[in-house]
């Protein structure tokens, strides 16, 4: 989640920003900026914005999309647009950037004068989500960070790369090769995410200003809560009345095996193999369901056994938590980010949830959020 007091609202306190978002009265003003190829400001084109939404599906290949109706053309496929939102309560106001997008699919409505364009834009991961078209290799001894930065620099995307520095000096123990084969569809994003996964970092994402980011993967249940949604709080609640919870235990796995690749020796349990069994925890355990349901064995690119274990635990956690999802409607919460952790308090229960997807309507309508319970 964005920091409440980060630029461009650094002159406000966290309490002021929170009161703007949840206060008893709020005015919402949408805006749109044109950026250059290095994400620098070119011009304000808010007057061309008729309506729109910004959406984020944190589990998709390209997470961020926007759907805008514009009065006026931009350089389709080239120009970058940054929607933003200003919240005001008559005393103070705060601006929230909502991402940087490249518009790919304009549909012009010729029946209107001036012509309006219904467009879909994708966040800057779209520049990486293109086939490599060749064999690509990173040699052993190269740091993972260097390998990733090299790709982004070579593609001349113009976005900054911010990686958590925990494993900045970690190097590849073996060469990694993405071979060109018949039907090969390996993308630059695949390669970067393979490299990040090898050191147990989260898949790359683009933030609200178009910067690329990644941090070590941590089980969602152990991450700090970034926002509390409490339906009984009559001073701050912004959750609409209609909300659903879906419980699903169909084909829920309770046995997993992960195998490290590449290996120069035969993998065995504890050295190249990591097996997890859920015998008694929760409603999908072997005891609760009365049988063992095995997940397909997964081969994971991992720098070492520690990384294999961490990646395996993340997959197990993801498998286990799909049993409960909340679909809610929410007023604009424009600090939303990537895979945020929120606490959802409703009807006397309290769940720690990962935000799988969200929608922000630029005109301020309530929009759908999908939360996935990740309670420890």
């Amino acid at each position: 989640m964005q920091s409440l007091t980060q630029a461009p609202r650094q002159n406000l306190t966290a309490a002021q920003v929170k009161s703007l978002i949840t206060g008893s009265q709020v005015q919402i003003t949408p805006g749109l900026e044109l950026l250059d190829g290095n994400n620098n400001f070119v011009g304000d084109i808010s007057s061309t914005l008729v309506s729109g939404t910004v959406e984020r599906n944190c589990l998709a290949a390209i997470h961020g999309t926007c759907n805008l109706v514009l009065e006026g053309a931009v350089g389709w496929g080239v120009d970058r647009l940054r929607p933003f939102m200003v919240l005001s309560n008559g005393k103070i106001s705060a601006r929230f950037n909502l991402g940087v997008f490249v518009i790919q699919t304009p549909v012009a409505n010729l029946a209107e004068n001036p012509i309006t364009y219904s467009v879909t834009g994708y966040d800057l991961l779209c520049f990486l989500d293109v086939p490599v078209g060749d064999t690509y290799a990173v040699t052993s001894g190269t740091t993972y960070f260097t390998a990733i930065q090299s790709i982004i620099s070579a593609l001349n995307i113009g976005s900054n790369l911010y990686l958590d520095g925990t494993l900045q000096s970690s190097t590849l123990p073996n060469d990694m090769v993405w071979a060109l084969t018949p039907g090969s569809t390996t993308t630059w994003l695949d390669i970067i995410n393979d490299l990040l996964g090898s050191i147990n970092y989260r898949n790359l994402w683009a933030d609200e200003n178009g910067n690329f980011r990644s941090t070590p993967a941590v089980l969602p249940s152990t991450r700090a809560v970034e926002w509390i949604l409490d339906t009984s709080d009559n001073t701050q609640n912004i959750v609409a009345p209609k909300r659903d919870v879906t419980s699903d235990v169909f084909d829920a796995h309770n046995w997993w095996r992960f195998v490290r690749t590449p290996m120069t020796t035969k993998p065995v349990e504890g050295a190249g193999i990591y097996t997890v069994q859920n015998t008694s925890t929760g409603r999908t355990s072997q005891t609760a369901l009365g049988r063992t349901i095995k997940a397909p064995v997964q081969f994971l690119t991992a720098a070492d056994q520690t990384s294999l274990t961490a990646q395996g635990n993340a997959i197990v956690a993801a498998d286990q938590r799909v049993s409960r999802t909340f679909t809610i409607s929410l007023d604009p919460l424009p600090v939303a980010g990537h895979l945020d952790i929120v606490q959802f308090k409703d009807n006397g229960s309290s769940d720690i949830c990962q935000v799988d997807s969200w929608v922000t309507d630029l005109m301020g309508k309530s929009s759908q959020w999908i939360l996935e319970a990740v309670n420890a």
Partner: protein
Amino acid sequence: MTTASASVTLTTVWINLASSPSNYQSFPLMSGLEVDTNQPGEVRTYAGGRLRLVTTAGVARTATLTLPECSRDQINWLQTYVGQTVLVRDDRGRKIWGTFLQPKVNENQYAQTGDVTVVINEITYTEAV
């Protein structure tokens, strides 16, 4: 450099064409002027029963003019400039940049005049050149 200002008191409604301000019509027989102000927004109800006001920027005004006994020239003028940007000023000092899309003319049976109703929808307009 000196600047001069002047004020004019109007006794009725004047409509000037924005693209050519000297092109105008005045309507001395105005019988009704209704100005509505519309702030887009709503008071929303939330889970748990909370209520709050959510608005979006842009207060829109509409002015409904009722103009009896318009001459043929006045009617033709209004029908010619449908959908154009106009400046509407009234006898109370109000000034609205706007446009009208559906002037309604009720032709008088025994004369060349008509009773006209025009809804002026306000638009954001910059006078600077």
